[in-house]
């Protein structure tokens, strides 16, 4: 929180981490345990409710247990829960990185055009009848990923060449691009009379029907993104205190920014590719983490990831339990829970976040 202290820590001029380091120890254990408990709850709840005993029986593949429960647990719920946790963590680290690099509390993965890019990719794949899959997945995930990547790249390019304050111009470029892409999506949908629910499903996010193949595809990308961001944690701290300061410390600002944006876009794009567009997690998790642990990214990134995972695991529990056997898009749940919570935070902190 204290900019000058963070800054000196970032610059490597002092090793003043022990105080907050202890705090992280206690909190991270608590967060880790909470995540495990949340995932256990996620394995028990849903269209078919399992008791803890039934869960245990099914987990051990005990032949005495009900076969259907084993199938539901191993083939459906476990991969789905793991994927929700991974996507939650991925969105959270992407949000953390974007907020740091743009020094803007609103810069979550979607403000900078990634969401509308993914939506356009999906819609294009649908309307043009694109049917080439990737890594055992359908055509929509890669299309969403490519769309997100393209949109963020274009926004970045516009901002880079625009001159002036690059942060503001990037946010503006992302917003303007987002509006254009949304218009293109609407046009394509009207033009081809597409089944709205398919696109709708992507635009609001869902973990319905996701299996081990998704988990297997998603984890490595999130891991790469996390590791890259982890190693840029110190430069990120410096960047947070301003580009001028960072530059005066000899940081290659542009290179760091590109690296961080690349890693964050990868996490956001893969998240969209796996589950569609899920809002608020990338916005809220970093904020809560910052409240708990301050702004140092060595602590912020893992804490944010854990919080994002917990949030999305619970949101998915809600998505498949509230109207069971009917599924609610998980984006509705995250917005329903996340929106009010965010406003509450905003109010409590007197309109000042981050």
């Amino acid at each position, binding site marked *: 929180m204290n900019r000058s202290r963070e800054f000196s820590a970032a610059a490597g001029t002092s090793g003043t981490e022990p105080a907050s380091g202890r705090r992280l120890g206690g909190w991270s254990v608590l967060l880790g345990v909470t995540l495990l408990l949340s995932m256990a709850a996620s394995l028990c709840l*849903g*269209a*078919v409710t399992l008791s803890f005993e039934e869960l245990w029986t099914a987990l051990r593949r005990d032949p005495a247990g009900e*076969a*259907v429960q084993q*199938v*539901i647990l191993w*083939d*459906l*719920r476990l*991969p789905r829960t793991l994927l929700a946790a991974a996507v939650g963590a991925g969105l959270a680290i992407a949000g953390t990185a974007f907020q740091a690099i743009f020094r803007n509390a609103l810069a979550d993965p979607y403000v900078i055009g990634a969401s509308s890019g993914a939506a356009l990719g999906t819609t294009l794949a649908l309307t043009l009848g694109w049917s080439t899959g990737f890594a055992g997945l*359908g055509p*929509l995930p890669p299309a969403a990923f490519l769309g997100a990547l393209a949109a963020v790249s274009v926004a970045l390019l516009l901002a880079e060449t625009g001159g002036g304050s690059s942060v503001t111009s990037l946010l503006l470029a992302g917003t303007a691009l987002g509006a254009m892409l949304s218009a293109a999506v609407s046009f394509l949908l*009207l033009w081809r*009379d597409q*089944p709205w*629910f*398919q696109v709708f*499903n992507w635009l609001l996010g*869902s973990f*319905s*029907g*996701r*299996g*081990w193949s998704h988990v297997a595809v998603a984890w490595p990308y999130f891991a790469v993104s996390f590791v890259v961001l982890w190693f840029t944690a110190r430069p990120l701290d410096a960047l947070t205190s301003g580009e001028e300061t960072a530059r005066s410390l000899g940081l290659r600002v542009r290179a760091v920014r590109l690296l961080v944006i690349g890693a964050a876009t990868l996490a956001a794009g893969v998240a969209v590719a796996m589950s569609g567009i899920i809002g608020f997690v990338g916005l809220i998790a970093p904020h809560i983490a910052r409240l708990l642990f301050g702004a140092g990214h060595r602590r912020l990134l893992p804490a944010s990831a854990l919080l994002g995972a917990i949030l999305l695991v619970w949101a998915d529990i809600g998505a*498949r339990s509230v109207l*069971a*056997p*009917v*599924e609610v*898009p998980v984006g509705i749940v995250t917005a329903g829970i996340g929106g009010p919570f965010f406003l509450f935070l905003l109010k409590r902190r007197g309109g000042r976040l981050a």
Partner: protein
Amino acid sequence: MLRRLAVLAIVWGLPASTATVRAAESWPQVVTDGLGRSVRIERKPLRVVSMTPANTEILFALGAGDRVVGVTSWCTYPEEAKSRPKIGGFAATTIHLEAVVALRPDLVIAGDEAQSLVVGTLAQLGIPVLSVKVRDFAGLYAVIGQVGQLVGEREAAETLVGSLRRRVEAVVARSRLIPPEKRLRVYWEVFDAPVMSAGRTSMVGQLIELAGGINVFADVREEYPQVNTEAVVARNPEVILGADMTQGGALTVEILRARPGWSTIAAVREGRIHTLPADPTSRPGPRLVDGLEKVAAALYPQTAEGAGR
């Protein structure tokens, strides 16, 4: 959602058509339509525009096809309908109002609330619009009667409704003989991504029940809900039905078996998966009865054959 609210809000005008005085070919004709509006036709319509595929099928089935001067781009049946001028798509936002007006129709037959905006605008322009809403077979008979009355094909409508009614009753009579323990649990896949099925009140839900099947999602109030795949696995349907939709094409054992957890479902294990033609099972027109017969034949082939089909 909006549609459902509107359904609750509007008492359908079906009884009106049956209550109308039986006067053959006398004009003007007045009916109350599916939106509760009063529709008045001064003389026998010669230029009719259809704004839904089902309406187009009804008009052609009544022998009024040669007076249909405009259809939607989705109107693919009968073959002849394809060559008629297009007024746009099926969704209200894709209908070209100017194209409708330019056709100088003396009667427009529209869909339900989904098209209510267009209906309102056309009515303001002084064009008579009949809005139809079909929720079940009784509703279908009533709408055919109403359309027949307005286009001056009342006798054709009576004949058509009579034959449709007899065919539906034949299916129901056969399915009634199926003992409860032999009734099959049916899962109908409306769409694959997201996985959507059909609730009890939906037309598809009614087709399953009338054909003697047990819809595994009969407890869902929503018409076409996105369902949880765990629930599909847990409810273990014995037959899986689907329509040859534009997207995924035919449902196959291979496709279903590849889905996480689905290989344990009885229907998948035993390969009892049928793909039915989409239009007759989704368009609320005369061919809906074909759809019902196809569902019955898919579920209970012996029974259907035994009845000489």
